[in-house]
């Protein structure tokens, strides 16, 4: 197999991870990876080498260029001293009592608080999972999944660690579980590849607070994150994803969720950071009565670019989806939303509703929205809506007539628009922190223009 990867060495060009880098990585992993994992990495790397990074000629990447990622050489992620990171954890975390900390994509048990895991919940690092139950880890990590692309392949090829989370059948986990992905400061740009694989047994319930953050805004790194979740029959996953990467960082993530009969997936995606953030969310409602409820807010300014691609696959009858994404775009920021809903043949009694609303606050900001319906069954109720606009002059006038100045009125209305999504987060400490951040951001946006 090593020979095979070397044969690929010449294929990759530019700053893309080349065959040499991959061979070196595999060699370093020797002794840690079982054969099946090494093989899966080689397959994934071959897939990536074949296609390379996507270009804007690819329909899925029409509005988002990854040229800057392709042109940057990313070193291996540094290993900082965990003890020095504590202040950042408090600043960037969600404040949940159950916490897994990944630093630069690596599970740090010393920084995590997993002593009081509720019954039925297991959380392990890749190394621990391989030692305890290699076959189980294999199933969880490598279950065949749709939506393989260059970035998911890169993650599989190069991820150094993973968090494996399992909830036993019927386990109703009360307190939320936080997975905090922290990227540190380094001298040269580096790549981190956080990976979470999660399985909820039949009837299990879990709230996952999935936080991605950097330390300083001028840190340049590339987070290539991946989360896979399998929801058993009747299971419920509440997924709160907060992206607060450094303003100079690249964040390209994928979440792939599959829901069995009667299972429910509820997500809230908050995207605030990163120079380029691209989040793909692929939900398969695989069996009857599965449902999902997706909410999202992207609030970006300056030269930020936030891209959300969601794909809801209604593969069985009587499945339901609700989706509501909102965007606040200031400065020269670009917002992209592409929501695809597929109703497969035979998926009768499907109900799907989707909306995307964008608020443009500045002259140079831009929003691109492509809500898509693809329907192959007739007994369905599907609708989608999309709006792009600015703050309502009459509302502004109303507030100003009460003695509040124009800029403050704008801030208030913008805050109200975005906070509707944040307000859906059940875990109060995180919700309040994000609300405060939004309040500052709407104020900060005001300051910039003056």
């Amino acid at each position: 197999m090593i020979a095979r990867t070397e044969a690929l060495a010449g294929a990759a060009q530019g700053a893309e991870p080349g065959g040499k880098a991959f061979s070196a990585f595999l060699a370093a992993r020797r002794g840690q990876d079982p054969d099946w994992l090494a093989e899966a990495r080689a397959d994934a790397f071959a897939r990536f080498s074949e296609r390379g990074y996507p270009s804007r000629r690819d329909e899925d990447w029409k509005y988002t260029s990854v040229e800057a990622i392709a042109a940057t050489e990313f070193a291996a992620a540094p290993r900082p001293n965990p003890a020095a990171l504590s202040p950042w954890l408090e600043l960037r975390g969600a404040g949940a009592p159950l916490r897994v900390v990944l630093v630069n994509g690596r599970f740090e048990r010393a920084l995590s608080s997993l002593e009081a895991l509720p019954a039925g919940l297991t959380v392990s690092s890749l190394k621990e999972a391989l030692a305890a139950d290699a076959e189980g880890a294999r199933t969880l990590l490598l279950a065949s999944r749709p939506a393989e692309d260059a970035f998911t392949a890169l993650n599989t090829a190069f991820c150094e660690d993973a968090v494996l989370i399992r909830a036993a059948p019927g386990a109703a986990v009360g307190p939320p579980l936080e997975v905090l992905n922290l990227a540190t400061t380094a001298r040269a740009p580096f790549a981190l590849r956080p990976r979470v694989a999660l399985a909820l047994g039949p009837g299990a319930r879990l709230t996952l607070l999935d936080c991605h953050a950097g330390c300083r805004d001028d840190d340049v790194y590339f987070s290539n994150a991946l989360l896979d979740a399998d929801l058993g029959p009747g299971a419920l996953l509440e997924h709160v994803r907060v992206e607060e990467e450094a303003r100079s960082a690249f964040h390209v993530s994928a979440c792939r969720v599959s829901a069995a009969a009667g299972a429910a997936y509820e997500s809230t995606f908050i995207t605030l950071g990163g120079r380029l953030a691209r989040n793909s969310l692929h939900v398969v409602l695989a069996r009857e009565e599965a449902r999902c409820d997706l909410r999202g807010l992207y609030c970006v300014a300056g030269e930020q670019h936030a891209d959300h691609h969601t794909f809801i696959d209604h593969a069985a009858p009587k499945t339901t989806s609700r989706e509501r994404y909102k965007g606040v775009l200031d400065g020269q920021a670009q917002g992209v939303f592409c929501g695809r809903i597929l109703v497969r043949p035979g998926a009768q009694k499907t109900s799907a509703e989707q909306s995307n609303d964008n608020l443009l606050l500045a002259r140079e900001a831009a929003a691109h929205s492509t809500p898509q319906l693809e329907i192959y069954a007739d007994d369905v109720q599907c609708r989608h809506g999309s709006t792009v606009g600015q703050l309502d002059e009459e509302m502004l006038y109303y507030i100003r007539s009460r003695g509040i100045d124009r800029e403050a009125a704008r801030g208030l209305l913008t805050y109200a628009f975005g906070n509707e999504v944040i307000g859906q987060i059940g875990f109060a400490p995180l919700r309040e922190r994000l609300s405060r951040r939004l309040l500052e951001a709407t104020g900060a946006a005001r300051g910039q223009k003056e």
Partner: protein
Amino acid sequence: MTSAREIEHFAQAEYKYGWTADLEADSAPCGLSEDTIRFISRKKDEPAWLLEWRLRAFRHWLTMKEPTWAKVHYPKIDYQAISYYSAPRSAAGKPKSLDQVDPKLLEEYAKLGIPLREQEQLAGVAVDAVMDSVSVATTFKQKLSDLGIIFCSFSEAVREHPDLVRKYLGSVVPYTDNFFATLNCAVFSDGSFVYVPKGVRCPMELSTYFRINASNTGQFERTLIIADAGAYVSYLEGCTAPMRDENQLHAAVVELVAHDDARVKYSTVQNWYPGDENGKGGIYNFVTKRGKCAGVNSHISWTQVETGSAITWKYPSCILLGDNSVGEFYSVALTNHRMQADTGTKMIHVGKNTRSTIVSKGISAGHGQNSYRGLVRITRNADGARNYSQCDSLLIGDQCGAHTFPYIENQNPTARIEHEASTSKIGEDQIYYCQQRGISAEDAVSMIVNGFCREVLAELPMEFAVEAQKLLGLKLEGSVG
């Protein structure tokens, strides 16, 4: 499909129902090359600049790839197996009387209540006697020319008004535009040309029906309509009657230009042969239609009722350049049996305070696949732009598909864009309610569908709307129950 079979496919389409396609010496051999284009141009006695333009288009076409992004599937087209020029057929090759025409077609004519004479013309029956409509057309022509309106075939315009043609040809759809439009530029056969001078309001709806020699415009039609400052024109294309055509591939181009305060209304009813229940045969309709609102306060409105063709690939669009200009798109697309439609519009807002409205109604039945694909782009300087889009789909039967692919691109914070889409089926309860009142299930469906399309049908000129209503009902016969 192998190319031999493809050729066979085309050949069969030509020979259907015993029409002989025994072309006279005046036709070009199959295949496409610079020689073919020179041949066409020579036959049509075209000036050198037009031949040069065609050749430029052809050379560019050679570098292009056939697009595959549309949600339609069809066997690969062999562009070398098509004959690109045939002179109007002589009477000898046509059916001698209606007895020789496919009875199914006649049945449909009867249901639509088309007069016998018209039936003959539509079915391509050779009519020796001078038709009534010719004299009617002549009267109209006189009236139009009194007002200074030019309304003639494209070839005639090239001969009589070369300056106008040269000025506007390709000004909206350039010869490099897209695969099918470029092909059209290279080999276009004929079409219509309309010029309405400053401040003139065209007193009647212009229709190809009233244009002499309109019946044989060929498969690569090209239409150019210009409304000068303050002018108004309403143009009708096609008709509700089913159209047979021996050519399977149609790649038309329509260009509209509206100057200051001008208004162009373009209505289409398309009911070309869609193939049989199993999708055999049928027309491939790849059309590029685009209007340019060049002047301030100009207004372009597209209305289309698409009920035919095996494949429809068309996106009538508006480029809103002039300040305060308005673009409108009203569409009903119906797919039944194995028909596939990928249609929609593009509204490009460039001028300030430009407005656009999109209302699209898709109806899928049988195994039909119906996609709305649209783009609304607000460019950086289009202050105060406004768009409203509504795309509704109706599904009849569980084997069909309805898809919506809107693209919204906004670069201006003062713009307001709204897009709404919904998909649903005709409720059992609605049909039950009608049946309870003595209305048959079929009539109920027709009624519900017409209600669903009302906003669009209301945009059609009156007599057209009535026919279109009947047509929709007819097209859905047998799809329920």
